[in-house]
């Protein structure tokens, strides 16, 4: 595997032998930003729903169609609830909710490969400082914290395997990784064993905590603290196991009985339960071949799940608290290849968002008539990180991480927030 220059794998400090990540145990706690600032953040309920459409949704078959043009493809457009704005006919439900959304059609990012592009986008394309930056979810988990839910701050709802995925956390350390819920399944051993009553469980954990307290006397606290953390988190998850109950069939019908529909519904439940950052993944969008038939079946399923969750969040008045983002790692080429597909296109694509701190019912940014390049001001992922942090009440220009003494910006140094998107 070739060295990827923009993503060197080791922290400079580790390379030089200082503070191995995991000094005496917990895997790099990393300093808090100014402590008083962190306390203030914890008072308001700030949440994020991050919908990751993996593989590259085609902007030409969704947010920024160019009907009946050289590269426009076969589909028509439909009007939306924003006068003058049209989207692809493949997203009729979302078209009626555009007044809740803000879409930027002027996105231009740097990477056109999945393996490099996905991490780079998720990390906000930070400058290379010899550290592995955290994904957006881990960053928010760190900067905002878990709130009062007792649940982990970062939950990832996805197809495939579940478990505790700490690679997202980068230099922040494993406790800012994601609790992944794979195929809608609860983590293994989540349900209390039938022979263990609540009372029995409380008693034995009380004895355990007593033993740990005694053990910690006159010792470094780290081992006891780490053990306490994992048991507290585990027991909190157990108390919230109703989050993993079978869904109401009516909800399933509304969201669509598809992997994305079911996962989006779990995502909403996690947000209702107070999880700070919920990432919902949809895979399979990389339509290098048969892009149009592909999107003809993919888009309606996204449309159904996305519009359902937006409606539900709105009805529950949660859009004041929850920042919603829907995006991929890039868009798709205007040029249609021989497989009747579209390839990767970071040059001109779209990102949609809504909710906390974001203006409602606007479309900014413009691509040219062919959809090949951005015609207006271009926005890179760094701009979006600034914007999203701002929407969450964090000034990315002033806030820094403290990585064992190394100060690191939370968003790209050379970018600022996109004010037109902010409420």
């Amino acid at each position, binding site marked *: 595997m070739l060295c990827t220059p923009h993503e060197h794998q080791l922290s400079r400090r580790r390379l030089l032998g200082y503070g191995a990540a995991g000094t*005496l145990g917990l895997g790099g706690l990393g300093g808090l930003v100014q402590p008083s600032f962190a306390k203030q953040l914890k008072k308001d309920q700030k949440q994020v729903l991050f919908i990751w459409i993996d593989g590259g949704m085609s902007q030409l078959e969704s947010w920024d169609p160019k009907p009946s043009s050289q590269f426009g493809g076969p589909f028509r457009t439909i009007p939306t609830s924003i006068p003058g704005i049209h989207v692809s006919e493949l997203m009729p439900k979302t078209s009626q909710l555009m007044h809740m959304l803000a879409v930027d059609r002027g996105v231009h990012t740097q990477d056109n490969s999945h393996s490099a592009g996905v991490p780079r986008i998720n990390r906000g394309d930070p400058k290379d400082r010899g550290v592995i930056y955290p994904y957006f979810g881990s960053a928010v988990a760190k900067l905002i914290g878990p709130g009062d839910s007792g649940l982990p701050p970062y939950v990832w709802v996805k197809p495939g395997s579940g478990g505790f995925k700490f690679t997202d956390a980068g230099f922040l350390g494993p406790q800012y990784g994601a609790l992944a819920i794979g195929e809608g399944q609860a983590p293994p051993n989540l349900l*209390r064993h039938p022979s263990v009553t609540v009372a029995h469980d409380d008693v*034995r954990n009380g004895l355990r905590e007593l033993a740990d307290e005694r053990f910690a006397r006159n010792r470094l606290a780290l081992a006891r603290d780490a053990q306490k953390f994992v048991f507290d988190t585990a027991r909190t998850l157990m108390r919230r196991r109703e989050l993993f109950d079978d869904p109401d069939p009516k909800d399933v019908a509304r969201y669509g009985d598809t992997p994305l529909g079911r996962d989006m519904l779990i995502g909403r439940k996690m947000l209702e339960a107070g999880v700070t950052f919920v990432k919902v993944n949809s895979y399979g969008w990389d339509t290098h071949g048969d892009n149009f038939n592909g999107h003809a079946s993919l888009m309606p399923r996204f449309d159904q799940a996305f519009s359902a969750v937006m409606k539900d969040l709105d009805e529950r008045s949660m859009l004041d608290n929850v920042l919603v983002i829907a995006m991929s790692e890039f868009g798709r080429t205007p040029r249609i290849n021989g497989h009747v597909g579209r390839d990767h296109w970071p040059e001109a694509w779209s990102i949609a968002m809504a909710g906390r701190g974001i203006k409602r019912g606007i479309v900014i940014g413009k691509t040219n008539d062919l959809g090949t390049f951005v015609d207006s001001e271009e926005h890179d992922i760094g701009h979006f990180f600034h914007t999203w942090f701002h929407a969450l009440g964090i000034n990315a220009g002033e806030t820094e991480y403290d990585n064992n003494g190394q100060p690191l910006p939370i968003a790209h140094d050379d970018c600022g927030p996109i004010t037109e998107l902010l409420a």
Partner: protein
Amino acid sequence: MSQNKRTITRALLAIIGLMLASPLCAEKPLHKQIDQLIAAGTDHGFARPADDATFLRRVYLDLVGDIPSSTEARSFLESKDRNKRAALVDTLLADPRYGRNMAERVHLMLMERRGANEHWSKFLEQSFLENKPWDKLVQSILDPSTNEEVTNGSNFFLTKRLEKYGQNPTDFPGLAADIGRMFLGVDLKCAQCHDHLFIDDYKQADFQGMYAFALNTFVRSDTDFPAIGERVMKAPLEYQSVFGGDPQETGPRVFRGQEVEVATFEKGEELEPKADPDSKAPGVPKFSPLRILAQQLPTDQNRFFARNCANRLWYLMLGHGIIYPLDMDHSGNPPSHPELLDLLADQLISHQFDIQWLLREIALTETYQRGGLLPKDAAPLQPAEYRTFKQKGLSAEQLCWSMLRATGELQRVSDDEDDATGLAAVRAKFMAAYANPPREAELEFSPAVRAALFLLNDETIVQWTTAREGNLAEKLTGMTDNSAVAEELYLAVFSRFPTTDESATVSEHLEQSETRDVAVSQLLWALLASAEFATNH
């Protein structure tokens, strides 16, 4: 101690060291020399020595990967033999579980949870049982020849790394880098495309020289054990820095060693023996970089090899490397105790890389036998000073053996592969709960939420902590004397006697509870799930 004083002390010690090394002098045992150097490494106070119980459990876990039975614990603690600790070390080194434990620990270190293989495990276990020297062990791992039945499977270190995972192509560069990391203590991964950006010692030429050993390898498909084959290397490896500069080339070259010239042959004459279409055995190149690697890398001439061996064996016992991270041996990351590392490396060489010998010496040091409590001196603790014994984690394997023994379930668990409650199934559960995902090293104590859920709710743990025939829970339930229960419980699980408070807690709990067996299982579970059990302290 002031800077000057420390320099003088070091100089004195260096002189002493020289004197000791000289054959004219009656040599102090290595373990005493180690302690002197550790003592000289800090001005601050050390923790008190570990008590017998702490030492007992610690050395059992480190050498045999298991805890003592309550009988063994009681017997050791009550023994008045002044030499009992040294005797225990010798007993454990001779225990068949030593071979199994070292195989598991070295497998974990070298394979980083990439996967298991029965031939590889057997090769490792056998090697440690017969105390194969480290250089011969590494030689077997790197050498592509497969004539010895006892070493068949030794190539797993190489073959597993040639397996593709995810969407990635075969990771030849990763294989080259890992040979350097595991056997030389140098991580050259970031010097593939250019000289290392931060570490001046690691050059692109260094990486490329190592890469030349790896990039023509393939996994043989004609054997039922992991075996490595090589394609013909026809020319030196060409490379160029991404930052410009002239194109370069190199033949295979062990890090800091001499470049080997690529021997070329007439087309059709490169293989000896040739490929056998009947057995499907691939031909063996006459110019075999791997065979050269196996001859040149693990030798006493190779300073990095010797340092790395010493460093890693030290890490296995102390939980920290004299060079740390373990794969960062370069002048910008000096050893915490340079003379110590040199001493260990030299001694290893003069003892022909005898692993048991070095482990024994380390086990006999005060450093290893230091207590795990905080020293009186309140200066902040740096692990590299060894002022207190570092709290280490237990691997999934160690936890499994220890819990089986602690709960008295070891004799019940069957060897039947298909038995859902048998040993294989149980070990698999422990791996799922405690082992890292592939390619993530397990170096420090990092408990996971899934492990907590496992202890809280898994069927196996519930069964083990419930009274049933022959297990500890049943035994304790049947005992009437509550202070005897406390003693047996703590000896079985923590390998020590309970304190007065702990004994009182046990008695109170048993007296207050309505159902004795439930109370016992609560007490037992609490200790198994505690930080004390989860750590090697």
